[in-house]
Each structure stands twice: as structure tokens, then as C-alpha cells.
């Protein structure tokens, strides 16, 4: 599973993507992915609004995730 990071999510993690490799425990749902992000990077806890896309489609928290998915983490951005 590849996770692409945008906006402040990229700044929090310090890179634009990361990958759950073979053998890694992969989050089973969007909610679980969000929880994992918060555990690894507490700053995610501050973000009340975070859009998640799975395979280029917007996904609700309940959406199941699979090992081959490409997930995008998209916080709102305000700049102009």
C-alpha cells in the first residue's frame, strides 16, 4: 500500500509518500489508517478535517483498505 501525502500532511511526515511493505501490518480501513497516522505522528491529532482518497476516489472512514491500494491523504489548504 502506497500512501501519498499532501499539504501539511507531507510537512508532518517529512516526505511526500511512504509505503506499507510486505510483512507490514496494513490498516484495514480508512479510519484505522487515520489512527495509525495519529499514533506515529501526534500532529495528525490536531487535524479535524482530512480528506482521504483511495485509488483516486474520495473515501469515507468506513471504507475498507487493501494491500494494493494507493491512498492519498489530503488536508484542506487555505493559501492564495
Amino acid at each position, binding site marked *: 500500500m502506497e500512501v501519498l501525502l499532501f499539504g501539511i500532511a507531507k510537512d508532518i511526515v517529512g516526505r511526500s509518500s511512504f509505503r506499507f511493505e510486505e510483512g507490514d501490518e496494513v490498516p484495514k480501513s480508512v479510519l484505522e489508517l487515520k489512527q495509525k497516522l495519529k499514533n506515529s505522528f501526534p500532529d495528525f491529532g490536531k487535524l479535524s478535517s482530512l480528506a482521504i482518497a483511495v485509488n*483516486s*476516489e474520495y473515501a469515507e472512514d468506513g471504507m475498507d483498505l487493501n494491500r494494493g491500494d494507493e491512498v492519498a491523504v489530503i488536508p*484542506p*489548504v*487555505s493559501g*492564495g
Partner: protein
Amino acid sequence: MNTERYDRQTILKEFGMEAQLKLQAAKVLVVGAGGLGVPVLTYLNAMGVGTLGIVDNDVVSLSNLHRQVLYAEKDVDNPKVAVAVQKLKEQNSETEIIAHETFLTRENALEIIAHYDLVVDASDNFPTRYLVNDACVILNKPFVYGALHSFEGQVSVFNFEGGPTYRCLFPEMPKADEVPNCNENGVLGIVPGIIGNFQALEVVKMITGIGETLSGKLLLCDGLSNNFQKIRFAVNPDNLNIKTLQDSYDFDCEVPVSSISSETFHKIIEKDEVQLIDVRTPTEFERNHLSFAKNIPLSELNERHNEISFKVPVYVVCQSGVRSRKGVEFLEGVYANANLINVEGGMNEISKYVVKY
């Protein structure tokens, strides 16, 4: 309309005079005449959009010039709307340009937007973005969204022909300081140029019916890698049912933080010395600080909070009051019963009162 002027686009067989006349008949409101608004206004004006409204109440500052390319050095300190109107008229005297020299507010949004066919959200803050969304939904006007972060940008088309809205992507406004803006976080000068141009392109497609708009799709552009992602998303019908504006579009802060005005703080420190933690960087601290302040940069608060005494009140300060609020929020999580006070306005405000320090 001088047709020779638009020859190079009217000879496009998919475009032709028919599309040009649609542009000429269109009334487009651009909210914000900054990094995004400048390219949107400049190119829509050049391509022949008949009526252009501009909403802004800011003045040009020197630090705008690296990305707001309509403005020259001599325009610094002048109102953006006035400068923009003059330059756009010189560029195309056939366009009707309507200046709204105000910020978009809860009070004026519906009245202003009602006169236009289509809105471009070229603002730079969440309260305005949610206000534009809700006002456009209430008035049934489509709008083109663009927003930036560092080297990245987002573009979409909202509330167009029954399609999804901004709230279908981000249902609620983030809390204050949850996500930084350009002035705190920075932006590479060319990025708003790219995103603003994509917004102008969407406007042309919506008006003329040519091509495929970004309705239902969020375009993510990363300038550093030239990677482009299109995220599909659906309408949540609840978000089309907005009937009135919210009571307020100010940031609501879920975590209430005890605060003190810099004026009151000044009165206190004239009598007593207090425990003051300055969370700015060492470089900022060196430049100027209150004599009794202790410097623990925000980034080191996690390791160094044991240097603070929680038996007495803890005043926290930074440059403008933003980082000190974060510092207070952090310390509250660690010492739930501590007496923590944020100094509002930070050193910017304090220096007005306490020149002697």
C-alpha cells in the same frame, strides 16, 4: 466587440465566435486580488470575459510582489482593487470592471454574488472559502476553487450543474492554526500563477461549455515533482440544502485557552515579575525579549517542559500570539491543572507598551 482582437482563439474550430460571444456575455466575480486572483483576472480580462467583479480590501505590500505580478513597486501601500482596475482597463478597455473595495463578509456576500453568473474563490483563508461556498450554494451559483500550500495547489469546480461543493470534500472549517496559511508557511511565487491559470481555464470551460470541467474532481498539483492527481468525489445532497449563512465564519477554537491582552500583561509586569516562557526561536529571542523571559522554543517544549515551574502561573509569549497559543495547548495536555496564560498579540503588541525592555 473588436473581433480581430480575439482572432487567434476564434479561429479554433472548437471555440469560434460562438464561444467568444458567451465569454463576452458572462459576469464573473473574483474574490481576492492576490496570488490567485491576479492571474485569474489578468487572463479572463485578456480573453474577453465581458464583466469582471473584484472583491478585495487589502493594500499591496512589498512581500506580495514575488507572486502578485499585476502590481509594481510604485503600487506598494495602494489598494489592490484600485490598482487592478486601472491596469485591467489599460489591458482591455472593452471589459466592464466592477470594483468591490471590501472584504467579502457574512453581511455583503449574498448581495455582491447575486449580480454574477459565476464566482472564482481566489481567497487566502478558510473563513472566506466557507463563506463563498455557502453563499454560492444559497444563490445557486457555480464557483471555481483554488488553494495553495508551499509548492502545491488544489483546483476544483463546485456547485456546478448539481455537482458537489467544497463541503463535500471538507465538511467543516478547520480550527484556527490547524493548517497554516501562506503568510506563515510561505509559497513559491510561481505556484499561485499555475493554480490561478487553471482556475481561469475552468471558468472558460464552464462559460463556453467546451471541454470537461473539474466538477466532481479535485486536481492536486505538486510543483516539486510535476505530479498531478485527480481525485473523484461525489455530491452529498445535504450540502446543497444550505438555506442561510452561518451566524459566524470566524474560526471557532475548540480548545479554549486562557488569554491576556498585551495591555493587561503590561500592567501586571509593571508591578510584578512573572514567569514568562518565550517560545520563539533563539534567533528571534536574541533580537529582542523581555529581560525576565525564559526562552524555550516551541519545538523544544516537549523535551524541556520540566524547566518550567507549574506551581506559579505560566505566561507564554511568542511574536504574534500564534505559537504561544500552541504552546499553551501543548502544556495543558501535559499538566492539566497548571495555570497557563497566553499573551495575545505577542512581542509585536508588547513592544508598543514596554519600549523600555
